[in-house]
């Protein structure tokens, strides 16, 4: 028994020497080369065809008056509708505006995109969803007013496209809106 223990102790001592002591005996630099192979940091190629800038918000009045055409195309103005903070229900004012918009849209044949927007408060992500709800609320109402569904589409810009970049209630109120944009 004693002998066994002595042996064990010897092994343990030697083991400890091997593990802790050996580092003094040899150069332990691990050459890791090349750590960073001459990786070319490839610049991301520019996007193939730079997308055209976002369609300008085409809100009439249309300036050019057709010269030769006998019947003048109706000049259509679609008004924006506004919402309360963190709300996407239509106010009475918003409903009235949408009724006028519905009449105007029925006079033309173009498609209309409803663009939902939010004020700068709240998170960018939540506002994207909120803006979409605002656009869809207007879309549903326009459909109930008789605008064909296939003439309407929606998109949300969340808080990415403020009309007024101020940081006060006046600016925020302008930014919580749906813009109705006539598509070409």
């Amino acid at each position, binding site marked *: 028994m004693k002998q066994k*223990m002595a042996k064990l102790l010897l092994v343990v001592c030697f083991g400890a020497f091997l593990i802790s002591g050996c580092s003094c005996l040899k150069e332990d630099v691990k050459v890791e*080369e090349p750590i960073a192979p*001459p990786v070319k940091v490839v610049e*991301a190629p520019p996007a193939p065809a*730079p997308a055209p800038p976002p369609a300008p918000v085409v809100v009439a009045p249309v300036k050019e008056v057709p010269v030769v055409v006998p019947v003048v195309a109706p000049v259509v103005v679609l008004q924006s509708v506004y919402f309360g903070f963190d709300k996407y229900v239509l106010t009475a004012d918003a409903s009235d505006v949408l009724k006028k918009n519905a009449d105007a849209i029925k006079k033309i044949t173009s498609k209309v995109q409803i663009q939902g927007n939010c004020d700068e408060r709240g998170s960018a*992500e939540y506002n994207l*969803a909120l803006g*979409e709800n605002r656009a869809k609320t207007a879309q549903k109402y326009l459909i109930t007013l008789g605008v064909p569904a296939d003439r309407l589409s*929606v*998109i949300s810009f969340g808080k990415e496209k403020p009309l007024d970049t101020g940081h006060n209630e006046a600016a925020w109120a302008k930014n919580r809106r749906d813009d109705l944009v006539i598509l070409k």
Partner: protein
Amino acid sequence: MKSALCLIITLLLFPTASFADPSYTEVTAQGNRQVYLAIAPVKNLGGTPNETIAREIGDILKFDLNLAGPFSILTGSANEASSGIRPGEFDFAPWRSIGAAFLIKSGYAITGNSITLEFRMYDVLNGKSLDSKRYTGVLKDLRKMTHTFSDETLFVITGEKGPFTGKITYVSPLSGNKEIFVMDYDGYNVQKITNNGTININPDFSPNGREIIYTSYKKGNPDLYRREITTGVEARISSRQGANITGAWSPDGSRIALAMSKDGNSEIYIIGKNGNELARLTHHEAIDISPSWSPDGSHIAFVSDRLGSPQIFIMDSNGSNLRRLTYDGKYNVNPDWSPKGDRILYSRQEAGGFQIYTISPDGTGNTQLTTDGRNENPHWSPDGRFITFSANPAGGEAIYVMRADGTGKTRVSRNGSRDMQPAWSNHL
């Protein structure tokens, strides 16, 4: 007799046991600043001396290891008679006398466009070498090579590598519209990823760090794209009608959770990395967005306003067992599940600003990490030691990093733009 033997074994093995043990020092908390690390002046080891490069190496080490947390960096330098960097080429006593527990010595040798860096880490109290590494590469990889040793240093001290070779992807309106960028975690080597002139948001790294997903309006609808960073090869993986936003890569890299509105309003779905729909997880008329996976992929935290205002919820990753996580505060968003699974970061809108909090997945231990201004979109570093987020202390929004306990808040993006929505990649 037996216990005496055990004692002897323990004593004999002590120096090696501490190597084998994952933590060389007892680092029980972030920001434990009682241990002092000295970083010796960087030495020229051959070739043309270059003071700028020597200073840059030292600055990178100091920046990384100061943020690291387990130690304070000693600002002074020891008065050495001989300042060699290898064992036997210098004396530990002067370092011991200024209070250093650990010491990093390093040197460089430049040949043409190539540089060799040698780093050595010492236990000053025991006068012992802990680690040594030599890296050779081109000069422009100097920062990457030095960050690699910082990662290594944390491994030696704590048993787990640092995240300093990771990258941060983020959104910047630098060029007038929001584009996606990638930079080193400390703000260097800024690389513009998208350049399409529209709105590009919500970037997230794949688990291997080689790809990102992001949402872009470049084709007129907020669609989800997957892009390989180095080659720029890209695929539009979800262009379903309506929103395809807040994509989050699954921990195994095979799937993506995201919010889509194709079925009427914003709901959480899982799609394959090529865009095929795998599952719809939520069915509610309220807004459901911003999914974040638990590290084992079994659960998903997300934001829903189904109870009237945005709050964080958790569900199984098949949509079952839904439960509410946050009860305090009226507006809680941006959940990010920690890499170890034990905490969930989120940001809360309160009193005009946004503050970052963490909470356990069981709803206990809610802890506030920031106090002023607008602090948003918190994301964990891949090792869970640090958090990157956007903040606007002086008006201008920028990308910041801090320790997981909220200490060491440091601005890293420095272009004067309103940088936001950062995510930190694994080692490449």
